[in-house]
């Protein structure tokens, strides 16, 4: 009955002694998450701002697609990437299935709509008269939009944290397209699934604690940054 306590103690030991397997898997998770998040931010923040600040035909339809993307089950994104990258698929020649690249692609597809959606809401929340006033004061269109984006920074940062959370905790898609290959594509979430199936609950728990810890740390850093950023300067 005390499997839970035993697993917890062993998990703490694995973490405190910096067990090489645990460290390697944690670093790989961070690597995939970091690359995917940067790409999502570069694609998503400008797109969200653009959607909020411009009018064009079909905008509502496009926005509906973004919102659908925000609620898309990650495993569906994984399946699509799998079929695209399989040797029998349209991008099969790349030979990217079962690699970190495939995982990054799936993660970007999952996180980008989230970043776009939240950035858009954040920019929409900025007082619309700000841009007009800046233009009246002689700012170029680009300068005034930059200023609006700067006003929306807190919301944008929240979007990035949400993206980080969805990327690092995702399991189904990366399992499908990465293949959970030891030493190559095995990350925290897929390792937890595998070790639980093998009955290695202590190792699974150690990895779970690290996953929670990383998520907490990211949120803490963002919360602190958010506090500082939202203070009037």
């Amino acid at each position, binding site marked *: 009955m005390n499997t839970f306590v035993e697993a917890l103690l062993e998990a703490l030991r694995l973490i405190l002694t910096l067990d090489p397997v645990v460290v390697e898997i944690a670093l790989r998770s961070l690597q995939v998450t970091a690359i995917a998040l940067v790409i999502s931010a570069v694609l998503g*923040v400008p797109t969200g701002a653009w959607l909020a600040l411009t009018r064009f035909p079909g905008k509502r339809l496009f926005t509906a697609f973004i919102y659908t993307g925000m609620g898309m089950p990650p495993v569906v994104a994984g399946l699509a990437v799998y079929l695209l990258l399989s040797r029998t698929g349209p991008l099969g*020649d790349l030979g990217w299935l*079962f690699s970190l*690249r495939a995982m990054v692609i799936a993660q970007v597809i999952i996180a980008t709509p989230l970043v776009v959606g939240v950035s858009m809401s954040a920019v929409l929340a900025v007082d619309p008269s*700000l841009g007009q006033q800046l233009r009246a004061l002689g700012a170029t269109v680009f300068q005034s939009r930059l200023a609006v984006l700067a006003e929306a920074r807190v919301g944008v940062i929240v979007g990035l944290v949400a993206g980080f959370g969805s990327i690092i905790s995702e399991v189904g898609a990366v399992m499908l397209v990465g293949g959970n290959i030891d030493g190559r594509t095995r990350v925290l979430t897929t390792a937890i699934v595998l070790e639980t199936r093998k*009955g290695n609950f202590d190792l699974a728990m150690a990895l779970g604690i690290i996953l929670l810890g990383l998520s907490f740390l990211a949120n803490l850093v963002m919360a602190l940054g958010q506090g500082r950023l939202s203070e009037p300067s």
Partner: protein
Amino acid sequence: MPTRNIRVWLIFILTLSLLACAAPATPPADQAAESDSDPQRLILATTTSTENSGLLAFILPVFEEQYNASVDVVAVGTGQALEIGEAGDADVLLVHDRSREDIFVEAGNAPARYDVMYNDFVIIGPAVDPAGIRGMEDAAAAFALIAEAGSPFVSRGDDSGTHSKELSIWAAAGIEPSGDWYQAAGQGMGAVITIADEQQGYTLSDRATFIARQAEGVSLEVLLEGDEALFNPYGVMPISAERHPDVNAELAMQFVEWLISVETQEMIASFEINGQKLFFPDSDAWNAAQ
């Protein structure tokens, strides 16, 4: 809005874009292995039993060192492994479903299939054995008793080699299993043993995975073993280079030859958990040497 703030924000955006440009240029770890001096990559799609039992971790480092290769193990059910092979997404397969392997070769997906090793399936269940099958010799008759008693039975339900074997036993018993007692989990062997253990139900397992899980504290016991129908042979197949020019056919063939060589077969024979042998070598080379 003070200009200083705008400048900070600009720098932030610039840094992000720079990072984004740098990201594709910084090769992910997996790509580094593809350059010339680094090890060649071999993708092995296999069944969960060979990886979950620890056999592959025991033998593969020897191959990787001898051939300067890195073997990427994608451990899934036999059904999925065959699909991965058919699509050309793996270089070589190590699976256990003899009839489907023969069909796979006949269809031209692999030039040949080679015997590697065998173990056997066992019917496991709770020590109290509510269906009363302990010590029986006929697997189909035991399945019939389990169905009659309505005791929980957890099926892989995932089109794996083990699932395929289970279905053939139900067919032999003339039963189409259905009802509350019959649960198709759709998961790997390790997970199914855990589910059966939690529910104190029966299941069919390959012996290797069961021994490995028993060492981690599963309370189920082997209740029936030794029926000829429970024989579980493993075969290795290189993927056809004719059909999929992108596969690493040369390394795949070297892997096959290495796996069925007497030296590797001896390693397979020496692999034990808690003093129990998990797999028995069965290649032509090994049998000729005996």
